[in-house]
């Protein structure tokens, strides 16, 4: 039984929700690309979908949590894997959740208390989605997944070489191999960051850790500090082996990963530029080795790859944006080329304030249109 105060609260919230939907009806319709939203009523022990036969294409679920616990809404593919999910739907609140559905049978699941378990309902989707973009996006997502796997393989190969040098306590060679070992990782960083347990083990920066976390610090940057600050990796071998193990776990998880063109690709490209803007332009990422420009280039390359895979769709939906992106990717690459040295880049320490400002301006110039990629792709 729910306690009375919760009931009262829920009642008030439902009332204000109806007020809201009365004001914002037109907007909601727009969000669902013209189609009416499918109502889902989630309670603590039920998951009622208003309509169970749906046409293929962009579908908006309007999920109202009328229970007492925080709820989570999931759409499960025929193979039982999660196609899309929305967490943290508070009691008495309502969330519009848009997902593209191809023909097939799906289950929707409401998980009161967000345990990942709960009552389900079957829905059947039939027909073909309107608009010709879907196949191209499906292919782009598949190609991107292959790109991610190739980059993780590359990072593992080069990290093995790096770790071998660490094991021999060959500081000079390890320093040389450090930055190249990170390139694959930095290229696909937002995907790697989806694995919240692995990312901090592999790529945590000392300055970002709490005192307790610091005791358990592992990964690339620990070795970076040992190499550049201490000038020795004696006794640090176990960290090299741990890094390789963690990267192997990352690799093992990739086959089961579903990457979608809007959030993971376009959103990922934006995140890559965010990484550059907040970590690389400032020189915070590689606090000891100052190899920030190598990471910078890898982030930009990763974003560019995503853009190129999505480009046919972007050109069709927003040609001006495509033009902006072409131009600004070229501008950033040109600017980076000015700092090339050998196979890599000059130490970021030698890049003066005026040049850093130029890099920062170029990153802003690219980051702004790149942030519009997701909107363009999902138009």
């Amino acid at each position, binding site marked *: 039984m729910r306690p009375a105060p919760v009931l009262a609260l829920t009642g008030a919230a439902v009332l204000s929700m109806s007020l809201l939907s009365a004001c914002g009806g037109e907007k909601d319709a727009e969000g669902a690309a013209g189609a009416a939203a499918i109502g889902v009523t989630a309670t603590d022990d039920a998951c009622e979908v208003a309509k169970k036969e749906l046409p293929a294409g962009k579908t908006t679920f309007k999920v109202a949590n009328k229970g007492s616990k925080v709820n989570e809404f999931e759409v499960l593919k025929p193979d039982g894997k999660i196609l899309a999910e929305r967490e943290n739907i508070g009691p008495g609140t309502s969330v*519009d959740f848009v997902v593209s559905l191809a023909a097939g049978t799906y289950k929707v699941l409401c998980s009161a208390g967000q345990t990942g378990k709960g009552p389900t309902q079957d829905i059947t*989707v039939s027909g073909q989605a309107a608009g010709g973009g879907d196949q191209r996006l499906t292919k782009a997502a598949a190609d991107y997944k292959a790109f991610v796997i190739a980059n993780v393989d590359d990072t593992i190969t080069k990290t093995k070489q790096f770790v071998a040098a660490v094991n021999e306590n060959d500081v000079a060679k390890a320093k040389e191999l450090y930055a190249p070992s990170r390139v694959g990782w930095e290229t696909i960083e937002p995907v790697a960051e989806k694995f919240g347990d692995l990312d901090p083990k592999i790529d945590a920066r000392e300055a970002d850790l709490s005192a307790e976390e610091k005791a358990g610090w592992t990964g690339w940057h620990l070795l970076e500090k040992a190499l550049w600050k201490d000038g020795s990796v004696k006794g640090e071998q176990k960290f090299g082996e741990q890094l390789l193990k963690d990267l192997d776990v990352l690799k093992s998880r990739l086959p089961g990963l579903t990457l979608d063109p809007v959030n993971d690709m376009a959103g990922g490209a934006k995140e890559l530029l965010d990484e550059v803007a907040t970590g690389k332009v400032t020189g915070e990422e590689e606090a000891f080795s100052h190899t920030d420009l190598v990471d910078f280039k890898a982030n930009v390359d990763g974003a560019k790859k995503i853009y190129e895979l999505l480009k046919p769709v972007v050109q069709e939906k927003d040609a001006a944006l495509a033009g902006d992106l072409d131009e600004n990717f070229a501008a950033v690459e040109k600017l980076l080329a000015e700092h090339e040295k050998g196979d890599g880049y000059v130490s970021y320490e030698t890049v003066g304030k005026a040049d850093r400002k130029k890099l920062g301006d170029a990153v802003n110039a690219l980051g702004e249109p790149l942030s519009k990629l997701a909107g363009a792709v999902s138009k």
Partner: protein
Amino acid sequence: MSQAGPEERESGPAAAGPAAAGAAGVSRRRMLGFSGASLLVGAAAGAGLDHVASAAEKREPAGAAVAFHGPHQAGIATPVQDRLHFAAFDVITDDRAKLVRMLKEWTAAAAAMTAGRPVGQGAVGGPAVAPPDDTGEAEGLPPSRLTLTIGFGATLFEKDGKDRFGLKARRPPALVDLPHFPGDRLDPDRGGGDIAVQACADDPQVAVHAVRNLARIGFGVVAVRWSQLGFGKTSSTTPDAQTPRNLFGFKDGTENIAGTEAGPLGAHVWAAGGDGSDWMAGGSYLVARRIRMHIETWDRTSLREQQDVFGRDKGEGAPAGGAKERDKVVLARLKPDAHVRLAHPDSNGGARILRRGYSFTDGSDGLGRLEAGLFFIAFQRDPRTGFIKIQQSLATDALNEYIQHVGSGVYACPPGVRQGGHWGDTLFT
């Protein structure tokens, strides 16, 4: 295979409450009413009907909108707002068409923001998977008399010997590089710039929001070179208002040109077609100076010396020998090196400027002193007969012991934007 493109749109109490949304809706409509009224006022002022404008200014509520369109840019003769965010930009492209396109986008955004409306589709009105057009921190706030005033620096016309935009021949003769004045210690990173935007509002959040959104729209075309926040006005362009005190505790600039004085505005503030630059007719020249005040040494100075330095009494602001702030200044009663005496029109062949400066405090300077002062802004018809002339007179100013000019900029502010026009359209023709 299906591919997911999940996007989210939230409603319910977790997002915006209905009460807040309703209130915003009502105030929006009210704002439209205000801006409509202001538009008429602007037209009347432009026609020279001073008494109409003056009466209307008194009616204008603190949060209302100031008309964006008109013969002159707002933010010059407009009654001075409480807060400032001034930003100078470098143009980072050589593509003239891109620059003009951005100026058009800026104009649309400026017209919206000064009317109290958000940029583009707003902070929450767009698709959930895209970043909002407007950054959102001014949602629900009134227009707050926001004005956005644009100016073009000399480097827009020619930079390092390069005529990037084909504008070299259009550089107005009055847009001069300022000479070195004794005591100047100018930081190039706090001065100059190809384009400057002065954002003034009664709410600092509204002014900062405006500059932030313009900077965002401009990415790839312009980059912020430097910017300055001003927290308190130090000038009045309203004749019956008291002059606000500067950080030295004095009322300075009492003889300012009022926004309602058509005669002095025409003679000293607005550029005319015959002045040497047709596209500047109805415009004005902005001189900005970041003036660091040596607050601590000033505070150790005796009251008598402080009053002698300015030539006014500290309590009332009356000129030496007078009783009230607006009593006539008798130059002979002031010390020869008193600030008011040297800056007075009678000491400068009648030269007058419209002052619109703000006090600033950017924390402390690492030596335990306030990093504070006056961000001086003056509008004039020609800096050569305005600021430069007066500043040269101030070479012997007793105040110089307590101040230092550390940043500088001069910008040609084009005339106001007509309906359907855009910032700089008279220049980029």
